[in-house]
């Protein structure tokens, strides 16, 4: 709820309501690691080892749950974006809305795709700091690239302006593909992992 409040505030202050979607989904992605924290704290690996359920099913279930949370957050963020737009009297173009929506969802899936295999492969308490490193490196590299090659960035933006269907294709289909690949990797890592007992 705090994250939602901060997101709304940021959207209002920046007079950029779609920013709400970005912040809500990013925060949501980082907080999904709590699933693993709770699991580790409560010895759930022991419970999983006792239940008649395959490790792969545990991985799939966690990804599906996370995806559902992501979709719910997309819905919530969209509603808030429109509400704030209306309240502060800012009009959004279709392109702006689509870009922010698909971009936020893609980022959500990208973050999950990077973090989850690390969490499935190793104890959360040991890797929680490291799991965020690839994401941080990605953003630093991306920012540096944009600054170093503004023409490339502008060309990319122009391309998407003239091929808006690609925003949906990459933002949604590409994101889901990323999640699928991540899930396969997580399954492989989790299968090799020994389940702990208290």
């Amino acid at each position, binding site marked *: 709820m705090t994250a939602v409040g901060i997101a709304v505030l940021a959207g209002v202050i920046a007079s950029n309501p779609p920013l709400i979607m970005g912040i809500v989904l990013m925060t949501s992605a980082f907080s999904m690691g709590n699933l693993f924290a709770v699991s580790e704290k*409560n*010895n*759930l690996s*022991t419970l999983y*080892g*006792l239940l008649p359920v395959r490790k792969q099913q545990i991985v799939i279930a966690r990804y599906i749950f996370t995806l559902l949370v992501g979709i719910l957050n997309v819905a919530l963020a969209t509603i808030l974006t429109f509400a704030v737009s209306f309240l502060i009297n800012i009009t959004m173009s279709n392109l702006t809305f689509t870009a922010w929506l698909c971009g936020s969802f893609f980022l959500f899936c990208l973050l999950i795709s990077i973090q989850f295999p690390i969490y499935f492969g190793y104890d959360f308490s040991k890797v929680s700091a490291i799991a965020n490193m690839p994401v941080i490196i990605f953003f630093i590299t991306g920012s540096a690239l944009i600054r170093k090659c503004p023409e490339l960035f502008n060309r990319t933006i122009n391309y998407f302006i003239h091929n808006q269907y690609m925003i949906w294709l990459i933002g949604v289909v590409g994101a889901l593909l990323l999640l699928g690949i991540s899930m396969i990797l997580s399954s492989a890592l989790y299968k090799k992992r*020994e389940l*702990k007992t*208290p």
Partner: protein
Amino acid sequence: MRNAIEIKGLRKEYRDFSLNDITFSLPTGHIMGFVGQNGAGKTTTIRLILNMTARNNGSIRILGMDNIAQEQQIKQDIGAVFDDIFFVENWKVSEVEKAIKSFYTNWNSALYYQYITDFSVPINKKVKELSRGMKMKLMLAGAMSHNAKLLILDEPTSGIDPVARNELLEILSTYVSDGEKSIFFSTHITTDLEKIADYIAVIDKGDLFYTGTRDDLLTRFYLIKGGLNELTGELRERIIGLSTYRTEFQGLVPVAEKTIRRLSGNIIMETPTIDDILVHISKLKTHE
């Protein structure tokens, strides 16, 4: 008679510990105590049985099925309890049932709540608010509510008071009374074994020292005691796990060695307890 557990040549290697060629069986309808000191390999063996860790060699059959090839099928028919709770601490007792029942085809909610009532576990309390004994009983209720044919318990009585421990042992004795269910439990509290175990497996530093009936184990050795002046060189060589104190010595000798009395007239030979056997065989390993 089918065995509930059949283990042959089980081997598991870690960097600083290994389980070596463990072989034993638990006949259906009986209780086996798996005993050894801390770090002997009891929990490792249980984790291998449950396929929570991969083995390096050997075979494990549970209820007649291979524990890897038919893992999901086996886990429908077994329940397990460990010495610490493995439910989310904020779940209420009623929520524990909701969380796990859908995984089992034979889950019996009425039976779960019957156990909860019989064990006096408060339904509306959160897991974290339960005492250690209550947590054990909760895990046991969960393990027994899907008609499990085999219960595997890893040190279920450690850290709980004598009254709760006795209650737990009574529950376990009743559970196998129909002759169809079996219990395998590890412990280093040997008095529990003396109360309910039909079979015993003794493990020491990764090696299986003994497997068989409890009575057979207790009649296999004599506990030998005497004054230090009675301890001759020949006697010293024959004693297993010799302990020397200020004025006396103690150790084990195989029953077949009853002629040992001739070596020294004033030594005492008596039936050991399981504790005595554990203490002295561990000393044997230390000195090798």
